[in-house]
């Protein structure tokens, strides 16, 4: 029997009707654009492992409502332009509704695209203040740098570090950090004596360190996101006498392990892995469950919980629905209790010191 035009049209119309049943067995696909190589590669690899670990645990239990979850990883080398290319690839070609992101510059570059295309960006590592207002579709599972610097400044001034110099990276994150140091260190009763920039990926810090040292600070406030180990080595070689303090940006395993960083102070978002979980991670990846692993593991579980809720409510898995559901759930209990009063979470902080190659807890900070 020859196929009539009406039969063909009817068959075509029937295809979307049978898709939901078939889609149940389809994997849920999301993306991650991280600096897997380059100066930020060490941290980006930690972030990737955090997502992968959470993903493997989830899929081992059968996924979300019978569907396995797949994450497509893209390497942006912490570069904004590369991030935009990766974003367009994941969204336009693969129609992914959600993408994990990291680093302020890349996240800020993708934010307008996320707004326009209603794709949810989930950031669990970058902290520039501009991220809080960059896009309604950018969810930050950690506070901005301003919140962290406020508590760090209070602690430093309370502990006698009242005169400071600032070493900042000439990037979105670094400049945001510098501006917050100027604001909050002054408000806490401290005084900024000098400031010097460095470029992202720059490894010669000697001229900047020498100039900052000349202002005779008690403490150097650091806002750099790469090459902190080289900075520490040159600080040690120059035998500088002031303390060095920073934020979560200094949470770099290579830096912590380097004897040159002995005594470096830094704040860090509270996140501790239970021993059994940390042991499971170590047996799988043969490395410790470092800070950014925990951050992205936590963020992944927030995302999985939200997707489960969206599917429970029988809504399409769009960036908009995931965003609205995440903010509606509001409070998540994972490795860290995360509360979303806005699209930027509130999380408590620790004060830590690098000692003997370890990152040692000094005290929990109350804002």
């Amino acid at each position, binding site marked *: 029997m020859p196929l009539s035009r009406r039969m063909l049209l009817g068959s075509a119309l029937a295809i979307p009707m049978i898709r939901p049943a078939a889609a149940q067995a389809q994997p849920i696909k999301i993306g991650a654009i991280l600096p897997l190589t380059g100066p930020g590669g060490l941290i980006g690899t930690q972030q990737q492992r955090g997502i992968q670990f959470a993903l493997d645990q989830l899929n081992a239990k059968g996924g979300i409502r019978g569907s396995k979850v797949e994450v497509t990883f893209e390497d942006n080398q912490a570069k904004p332009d590369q991030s935009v290319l990766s974003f367009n690839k994941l969204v336009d070609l693969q129609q992914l509704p959600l993408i994990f992101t990291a680093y302020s510059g890349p996240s800020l570059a993708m934010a307008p695209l996320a707004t326009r295309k209603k794709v949810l960006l989930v950031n669990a590592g970058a902290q520039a203040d501009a991220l809080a207002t960059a896009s309604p579709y950018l969810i930050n599972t950690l506070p901005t740098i301003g919140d962290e610097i406020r508590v760090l400044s209070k602690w430093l001034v309370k502990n006698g570090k009242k005169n400071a110099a600032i070493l900042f990276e000439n990037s979105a994150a670094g400049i945001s950090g510098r501006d917050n140091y100027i604001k909050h260190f002054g408000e806490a009763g401290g005084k900024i004596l000098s400031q010097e920039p460095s470029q992202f*990926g720059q490894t010669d810090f000697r001229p900047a360190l020498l100039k900052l040292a000349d202002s005779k600070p008690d403490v150097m406030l650091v806002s750099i996101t790469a090459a902190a180990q080289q900075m520490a080595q040159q600080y040690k070689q120059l035998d500088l006498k002031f303390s060095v303090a920073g934020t979560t940006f200094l949470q770099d395993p290579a830096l912590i392990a380097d004897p040159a960083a002995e005594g470096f102070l830094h704040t860090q978002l509270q996140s501790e892995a239970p021993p059994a979980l940390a042991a499971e991670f170590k047996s799988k990846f043969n490395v410790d469950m470092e800070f950014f692993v925990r951050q992205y593991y936590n963020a992944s579980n927030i995302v999985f919980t939200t997707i489960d809720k969206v599917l429970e409510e029988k809504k399409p898995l769009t960036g908009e629905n995931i965003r609205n559901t995440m903010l509606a759930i509001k409070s998540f209990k994972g490795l860290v209790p995360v509360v979303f009063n806005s699209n930027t979470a509130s999380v408590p902080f620790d004060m830590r010191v690098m000692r003997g190659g370890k990152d040692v807890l000094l005290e929990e900070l109350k804002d």
Partner: protein
Amino acid sequence: MLALQLFINGLVTGSALGIVAISFSLVFSTAKIFHVAHAGVYTMAGYLAWSLVRYGVPSPLTLVIVVVLCAGAGALIEWQLYDRLKQRRATDLVILIASIGLLAVMQNSISAIYTPNILQFPLPWASQVVAFGGIRLSWAEILTVAFSLSAYATTMWFANHTNLGKRIRAVASNPFLAEITRLEPRSVYVYVIAIASALVALPGVMVPLDFGLQPYGGLTPLLTATIAMIAGGVGSLHGAYVVAVAIAVMQNLCLLFIPGEWSVGITFFIFVFFMLFRPTGLFSTAR
């Protein structure tokens, strides 16, 4: 004391840049090739040294092997790329594009093999510090200056007192006359790029010994070296070296008066301004 330490810091950086500048100048003034891939040889030297050190080769032997390998790589570039292009009557622009292409291939290959992460030499002695009064220098910095001054002096002696050096100067001065007097410019070009590549291997190893290795780290020194070559007077090795050191010292001393983000811009502005009054370069009479 700050001014003195910044001055010394500038001298150290400048000595490394000076060798990049004279090696680049040697190629440009003789073979008339804007050898951008020189930055790739500079980068490759550091990574080769890092690999050899990781395999337990003693540091002095590592340096010798890397210098020889880089000389070989330079000769190969001239013999198999530039010379072939010249024989096919390629224009200077085509040769420049080929050189840029080769640099991209080298950088991407290094990045693919070693990853673009910053790599540290596993040599703790390089970070150890020697104090002279209030001045503190790491062994990596001291060796950078020592090798740079030795390489500079040797190059100047070589250019003025050896047969090959005189032959190179003759070819640089008039390649057409050199051709008809059987000085064989084509083989001279191979020697020149081999020598330049051997020279650039020294800062290529010494600088990363201090600051770590990055696959795309060669272009900035090459840019400064190019400016030093032009400002020093094309053809004057002495001028290229002196101006490279002067640029580095100025960039450091600028910090006494202005914030760091302005130091590179203002230093180069001074040179651009100077070039308006002396466009042939500072040491152009030495040509």
